């Protein structure tokens, strides 16, 4: 399936936040969105999800305009993993993931055993079955991130939008979450992910987009996009890219600021 963003613009209080953004995403793609704090990465995601109304432009899924779709239809196509948060009420992990099934329920229905089965499967995939009866507000940040990914997977979407899924995680949890995400994209999900780590984009993504000054500056394959010049301009610091040789494997590129 294909998600196309065409000439998208968004203003807040008359101030342009996103300007003429176009790109597309296909099954199996993993597109990493890089950009400094406050450039509108989250805003872009919310506009794509229809949570914010675009000023101009189109969002098409296999050629169909998303504005004609209901909330439930959109949620059946696109799963959303928001930035980490703590809800006011202490739900059990299994119930949080079950909420992902809402898009597939009738308006007045509660989830059935069939929905519970889907939840069991996604918990298996992400290896978090042991969290099932734990309280969502009391688990660690890394676990909570995996639960939010599981909830998005329970929507059984074709596209997955993830807002900085590795921020707030320790080194080990970052890698764990990224491995899971990589596997999901290999299995055919189209993933749009924002990150503050160019290294992660180099290592895991097959497309990279740079968002800067309301515009999508460049989009292309990671090696072409993540260059010393581009990153230095994007973040306003001097960035160097080094090659690290680990054992006999291929050299790995690493971004550094000296």
């Amino acid at each position: 399936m294909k998600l196309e963003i065409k000439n998208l613009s968004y203003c807040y209080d008359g101030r342009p936040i996103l300007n003429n953004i176009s790109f597309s995403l296909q099954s199996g793609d993993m597109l990493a969105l890089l950009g400094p704090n406050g450039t509108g990465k989250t805003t872009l995601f919310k506009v794509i999800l229809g949570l914010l109304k675009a000023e101009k432009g189109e969002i098409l899924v296999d050629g169909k305009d998303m504005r004609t779709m209901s909330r439930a239809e959109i949620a059946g196509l696109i799963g959303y993993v928001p930035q980490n948060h703590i809800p006011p009420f202490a739900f059990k992990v299994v119930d949080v993931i079950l909420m992902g099934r809402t898009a597939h329920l009738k308006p007045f229905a509660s989830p059935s055993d069939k929905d519970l089965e889907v939840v069991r499967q996604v918990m298996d995939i992400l290896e978090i079955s042991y969290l099932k009866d734990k309280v969502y507000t009391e688990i660690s940040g890394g676990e909570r991130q995996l639960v939010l990914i599981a909830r998005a997977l329970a929507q059984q979407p074709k596209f997955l939008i993830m807002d900085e899924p590795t921020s707030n995680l320790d080194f080990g949890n970052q890698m764990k979450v990224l491995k899971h995400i990589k596997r999901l994209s290999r299995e055919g999900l189209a993933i749009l992910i924002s990150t503050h780590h160019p290294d992660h984009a180099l290592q895991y993504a097959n497309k990279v987009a740079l968002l800067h000054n309301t515009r999508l500056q460049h989009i292309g394959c990671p090696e072409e996009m993540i260059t010393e010049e581009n990153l230095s301009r994007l973040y306003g610091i001097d960035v160097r890219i080094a090659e690290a040789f680990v054992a006999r494997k291929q050299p790995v590129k690493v971004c550094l600021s000296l």
Partner: protein
Amino acid sequence: MNKKTKLTEKMLILFLFLLLAAIALFALTAGRYSISVQDISSLIVCKLLGVESGRPAVMETVVFEIRVPRILGAILTGAALSVSGAAYQGIFKNPLVSPDIIGASTGAGFGAALAIILSFSAAGIQGMAFVFSLGAVFATYMIAMKINRGGDPTLVLILTGMLIGTLFSSFISLIKFMADPYEKLPAITFWLMGSLSAVNIHDIRSILIPAAAGFILLFLIRWRLNIMSFGDEEAQALGVNTGRLRLIVVFSSTLLTASVVSITGIIGWVGLLIPHLARMMVGPDYRLLIPVSMLLGSSFLLLVDTLSRMILPMEIPIGILTSIIGAPAFIYLLAKSKRRSFS
């Protein structure tokens, strides 16, 4: 949720139901005219079979004309206030919200005060309270929708509700100030304190349909209420039409609150306290929280009402009692519950 937890949940509901039934039976026997359980059971059986019970007529009057309506009133009011409080706490993502947060009670109070000063009949007072309760919430909702452009809809709704509430309480004060101090003023003051003593079977019958509609709607959307507590954007991303859901909650909670307030007057604290107690017992899942809040609320209000007419030499309006019990009980809950149900 596995089979075992489902079973314990059913047992809990059954237990709470039996508890309520026991309190109701106790309430039938208790009072200044005390009646034995045997007398009560034979009266009820005979009434159902339509035969003469052979008990004194006074006893029959006390049971069927006074105690049964009052008990039904307490059950209905307790359930209605608790369930709407629970639903509001979910959609406003705030555990300190009660069902009158957006003006339902003050609107009712104004309607009743106006009807009293205009010398309306009891039915007229009830009708005015109901209509103005709905009217106040409707005004709040429309104004909030009008002034909210892209902001947080729940915050605007609460703020507008407070303003409408303040406006109506000023109107109430104005009416009290102008009211005849020997006849009308005590009547208004008494109505505002809330009481179950005057509830009769016609009152119950007249609110049965709107109250049932409110209960059924909230019961049907109980799963989606869970999702609303994650906030509007997340709920929308999960496929919930949040605007419509919020409208359903406001509509059904207001129907429930307006119905019971119109026959009892303003009874505070139940709608705030009981959902918390329920959440401490069964957690935040609305699939269980809705029925448990209903049953706990009914039992609580019925028990308070029954004890008050047993113990105290004169009848104190129940609205005063629920506040006297509610405030310290709430402090206890706050101290007890740490972070699990408050944020």
